[in-house]
């Protein structure tokens, strides 16, 4: 099957690849471009570990056709820090011990980032809703919710998400 070219900005850099028409964004990012921030967990849109931002909107990379990302802005956890300086959400996750095995963390951070970009001062219920598509099988939800609220209180939403 003929491959198709696709070009987009990934974490601020121009990137391009050739993909199967049915290929998903997750495979392109991980296997094609070497960005291992988004993870494979279920391949069917239920676990949230592949969450990335596409033009600022959280999307499940495993259910997103790679060719549909032509010309879009893709952001992943790998590009979240500003050089050596952690994003306030990253710092808050560290300070709140909001990770156990760490596998869901990139997706959680991305979902939280999308939330704070739109809603800098979310309520606890809004935080819970925002990460409701992200499964933490270590069941560390409480520290994660606390971290997102702490980051919001510290003004994380004021930065460019």
């Amino acid at each position, binding site marked *: 099957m003929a491959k198709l070219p696709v070009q987009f900005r990934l974490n601020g850099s121009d990137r391009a690849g050739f993909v199967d028409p049915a290929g998903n964004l997750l495979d392109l990012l991980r296997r094609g471009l070497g960005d*291992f921030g988004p993870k494979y*967990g279920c391949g*069917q849109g239920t676990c949230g570990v592949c969450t990335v931002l596409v033009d600022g909107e959280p999307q499940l990379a495993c259910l997103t056709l790679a060719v549909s990302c032509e010309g879009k802005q893709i952001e992943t956890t790998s590009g979240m820090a500003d050089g050596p300086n952690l994003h306030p959400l990253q710092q808050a996750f560290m300070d709140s011990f909001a990770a156990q*095995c*760490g596998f869901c963390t990139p997706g959680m951070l991305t979902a939280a980032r999308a939330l704070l970009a739109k809603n800098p001062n979310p309520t606890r219920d809004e935080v819970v809703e925002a990460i409701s598509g992200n499964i*933490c099988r270590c069941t560390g939800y409480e520290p994660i919710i606390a971290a997102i609220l702490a980051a919001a209180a510290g003004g994380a939403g004021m930065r460019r998400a």
Partner: protein
Amino acid sequence: MTLEMRKEIFADERDDNLNVVGKGVQRQDMPGHVTARTRFFDDHAFDGLLHLKVVRSPHHHARIRSIDVSAAERAPGVKRVLRGADVPVNKNTLLSLINFGKDDEPSLAVDKVRYKGEPVVAILADSEAQALAARKLVRIDYDLLPTVFDVEEALKPGAPVVNETYPGNYFEYHQRFDHQKLRFGDVEAAFARADHVIEHRYQMSPIEHAPTETNGTIAAPDQNGRYLVHSCAQGLFFSLDTTAKIVDVPSNRLHFVGGTVGGGFGGKVDSLTEPLSVLGAMLTGRPVRYVLDREEEMLYGSPRGAERIYVKDGLMRDGRITARYIRSYFDAGAYTRLSSYAAIKCTAHVPGPYSIPNVASDIYVAYTNRCPSTAMRGFGVTAVDFALECQMDRLAEVIDMDPVEFRILNAYRDGDMKAHRRLAKNTALIECAQVAAEKANWPISEQARRASSVTGGGGERAQIPATPVDQRGQIGRPDTRNSPATQTLPAGTTRIPLSKRPVFEGARDGRPAPVQVPRYEAPRQDASRQEPPRYDPALAPPPAPPAYQPVSAPPAPPPPAAPAQPQHGAVRFSSVFGTRRR
């Protein structure tokens, strides 16, 4: 010098120089987690990566008549197709590394499939899609065989034989015994004297660990004939040795990299993907990635084994539990994996944290045509705890006693003799119950509030009672297994004598492995010891397997004056070998 752990022992030693306790210390792996720099097994790029997918059995139990892989081998992108004959050592059991149990599980099924989802053929192709497409081209003819899914059905005569390595459908402990057995005191006599005898059945379900990261491995040829293996394994060196055995290479040719596990919970100790990945890399000279998809993880990644537990208790009106008998069946599925160990842990946990003067248990590992089960978070212990604590609430209800006070009344105290013939130390259930009651605003009596783990134990409670021994549970089909008491061990006996020494047919080198396997000796004859009472057939109840058969042995002889003496050779329950905590 034993280590005393109770908090108040250190009360006077506490100073302010503690530099970690009570403070938050950052985990060293946290920066990697929040920046997505942590490399899990699948977060590695390789040129020329091959993708491995396995063809799984669609049947629970079937004989393989033929396997035709010719179309799959010709499919686009396919580089290699593996069958059972390609696996150098195609029979393994995980605990064979410590000489425990017989090799019983193939990496790829050869003659027979024993559970739905069992791997039969492996396909290696340039892309995942090509491997999946070629998987559909493999033709396997099966003759269906009768199935068994229930642990007690599996142990009945005439049940389909699941796993020919264990033709009785039970794991054979030390190649001789069909279950783990515990006898302490005379439960039957105590049941006869109890005010209430209460028996309930508890059934656990299998539980899938469902780690967010599925099981998987990437194996790549490295320099100097070595193989680099990025593994999800929870026990990295355990997996390395298992892989070295199955692919038949010295372990120093395998370089396992791991330590970042995307959730394991016990489900990543079975080396489900490592051996075939390494074998694929050896045979193709290319890096091979074998990752379970979510469906495979849910349906065929080994779960926590289901347990069926019968708890029978003798209870006095004043709240004392005087006897506890537990019969439990651990569902191993089609292969042993770690279930043999689970049953040992289960036995070690009987009768729970309670001081009960008469305790007996028979814990079986049964093979069924279900997915093999494995470790998960306290496996073997959590299920029996669930059963015991449900049972405790029911007992408290029967005598109309507060459930917290009921536990405080029956809790172990320091110096009590446990059913495993060790003195209880550092007990704290009473204090836990008191604190829990206080935090929950659960009113308990002044007497229960004043109870303490450090007082009231020992003395009479430190004695090992006279213990009738029967032959039930020695190897044989369940219908022949119910036997009367053969003798009574006098009070103070720490060793259960066995008539025969174990045979070692299952040992890897075919020779006895005296270091690992406990030896059993005939009991030393003590001149002061009375002749054990003879069994009176007139008192025996009619056999009704598999229900527990009361054994009406005559009363035990009076305990001799000889104190319990530490002896070697006792049946132990504290580890796989039974030798660690002698």
